[in-house]
């Protein structure tokens, strides 16, 4: 393949950053997108230059670490796919590909394409858990949960916290992430006792981190690699409203 890459390079949070153009050799269509970047980096290292920093871990679409905006779309815009599962055969032989980091105030750039997503961790610390006394394992069927509810909770729990929703939203809103995390707990009986305080505390942390508000554009849902539905945002809006009315 004869690609032209326009890659965002930024030394650190204080550096304004810029695009750098590469024309890598030896890229074949069977490579994954990250393998393609590995090849570029090997070339750079051999030439004694600074390799492109990018986040990656499992490379099988389940960890939520990779975080590339490819041609303006988080994870490259392929349905239900993380960047690591995207393959070069999806691109044309002579394509120009623009690669940028997640762009949000709450996700400051650490270096090049790596951003700091600890804002998400702080939101989880405000209620993305259930407080239960540990002890002997309870009987598996002692809490009856309907199939519909457990399915919905599992749909919400699919969120891998990659932050593509924030990256895609024109307001850099974290509503899809937070609503998935709130819903997967609030739907289940184990999460019910703390449901009201969970949604209030997690929303407050979300606001404090500097994420924008939801304007229902649907960008987040469209790019989510785990296909989390906008319906969870509706549910969180309802849960939050009920919680603040109760005081």
């Amino acid at each position: 393949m004869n690609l032209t890459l326009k890659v965002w390079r930024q030394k650190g949070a204080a550096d304004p950053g810029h695009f750098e153009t590469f024309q890598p050799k030896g890229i074949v269509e069977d490579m994954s997108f990250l393998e393609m970047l590995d090849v570029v980096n090997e070339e750079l290292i051999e030439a004694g230059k600074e390799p492109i920093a990018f986040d990656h871990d499992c490379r099988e679409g389940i960890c939520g670490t990779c975080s590339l905006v490819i041609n303006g779309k988080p994870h490259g815009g392929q349905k239900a796919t993380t960047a690591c599962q995207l393959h070069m055969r999806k691109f044309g032989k002579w394509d120009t590909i623009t690669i940028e980091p997640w762009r949000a105030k709450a996700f400051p750039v650490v270096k090049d394409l790596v951003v700091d997503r600890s804002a998400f961790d702080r939101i989880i610390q405000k209620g993305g858990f259930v407080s239960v006394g540990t002890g002997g394992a309870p009987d598996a069927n002692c809490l009856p949960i309907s199939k519909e509810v457990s399915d919905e909770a599992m749909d919400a729990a699919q969120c891998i916290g990659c932050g593509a929703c924030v990256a895609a939203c024109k307001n850099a809103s974290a509503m899809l992430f937070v609503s998935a995390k709130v819903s997967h707990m609030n739907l289940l009986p184990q999460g019910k006792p703390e449901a009201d305080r969970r949604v209030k505390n997690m929303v407050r942390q979300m606001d404090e981190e500097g994420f924008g508000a939801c304007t229902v554009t649907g960008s987040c849902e469209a790019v989510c690699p785990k296909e989390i539905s906008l319906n969870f945002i509706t549910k969180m809006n309802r849960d939050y409203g009920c919680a603040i009315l109760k005081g």
Partner: protein
Amino acid sequence: MISRHDFEADASGMNILSYLFKSSLGRKYIMAASGLALFAFVIGHLLGNLQIFLAPEVINRYAQFLKDNIELVWGARIGLLGCIALHIWTAISLSADNKAARPVAYADATPPAASMASRTMLMSGLIVFFFILYHLLHFTVQVEWVNGVEKTFHSLKTADGHHDVYSMVVIGFRQPLVALCYVIAVGLLCLHLSHGVGASFQSLGLKNKAWGPVIDTASKVVSFLIFVGYASIPLAVLTGIVGDSVAR
């Protein structure tokens, strides 16, 4: 380490008003609720105006009915003014937060899968707001220099001495530029509503899998009908379907 303290029932000391006015979700509730109230007015106002197609006496009687119940009209006006103020305040406040949330733009700033209506809410809303100001000066306050006619609307009287709203509307819309402004403005209003109505139900949490899609479709269909209804009045006057009885 997460301590018990972090997960207290309400560590913030916020009451319902501070939740409503300070949190992002609270401000969205205000925006949605005020928007839905204004949407209800837009429908009511349209139904009232469409009486122009019945007969001059019908719309004039309706206008007189409103004038005779000025206490109720002022109640509605104050309510609407409050809704507009809240709607604009939340729009400014949330837009500022939203802009601040992305300090560095992407190379291509078009967000994926977002409709044109959803991306242009602030702009369509602003233009509609300035149109409302014009519309009030034109037909409510009846300022002579905005109507494009060398005639004050105050002087138009029916045979029994009441204000002749029918003739005012007909003379007003015989000005092609004025009529064009109205058609463009109601077009933008309906673009705004086609996204806004459905999004209001979403913001208030009043949607689910069963009727969410129905609300979204209804929001677009009703908005289009509102456009057809409002635009039909200046167009009917311009084409001469309405207003033959009014002297040119």
